[in-house]
């Protein structure tokens, strides 16, 4: 079963770590975008581009992170079997 982990803060990321499987992915939004600049899991990673832009992070988007907007977030929640908001 694949899970989309939704991360809005460093604390949320720390809670989610260790509970991610190989088939999962991670979505950073809000202040969680700061976490995407640090250590990333070896999973597909996404951030909400407008949230990153609002924090002046857009130009620092790590190569491993794909920027998405809300319509794509909606479709991602349908692609994965489950979502967990940390």
């Amino acid at each position, binding site marked *: 079963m694949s899970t989309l982990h*939704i991360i*809005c803060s460093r604390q949320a990321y720390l809670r989610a770590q260790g509970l991610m499987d190989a088939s999962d992915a991670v979505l950073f*939004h*809000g202040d969680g975008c700061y976490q995407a600049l640090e250590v990333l899991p070896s999973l597909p990673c996404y951030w*909400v581009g407008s949230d990153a832009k609002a924090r002046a992070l857009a130009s620092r988007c790590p190569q491993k992170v794909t920027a998405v*907007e*809300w*319509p794509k*977030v*909606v*479709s991602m*929640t*349908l692609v994965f079997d489950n*979502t967990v*908001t940390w």
Partner: protein
Amino acid sequence: MAIFTLLITDNPQAGLHFAKAVLAEGHQLASVFFYGEAVRVADSQVPMVGDEPHIGQAWRDFALAANLDLAVCVAAAERRGILDSEQAQAHDLAVSMQAPFRQAGLGELVTASAQSDRTVQW
């Protein structure tokens, strides 16, 4: 088309972005349920402050435009003094929750979730 239930607990702003995208993409919202600290969004006594965004008003505008009502956990709201007319009368306090927000119980969240393709928390 998919049916979504949204549980809003911590990030009403992100939840609003997601809710708008759900409808814009042609999906359906079975329920939007506010719980925990997020019930403060329903407090009609919070004034607009300068040019700051007012998340409660943004949710109100969205719900009215989309013809939705917004379910608010009755216990979480009452604990924070956010009262509809019936509760306000019972406690002899001012009304602080108005449509499109309305009180609801957790059973309603469970039912909506069971009838939805996805329940997403924000």
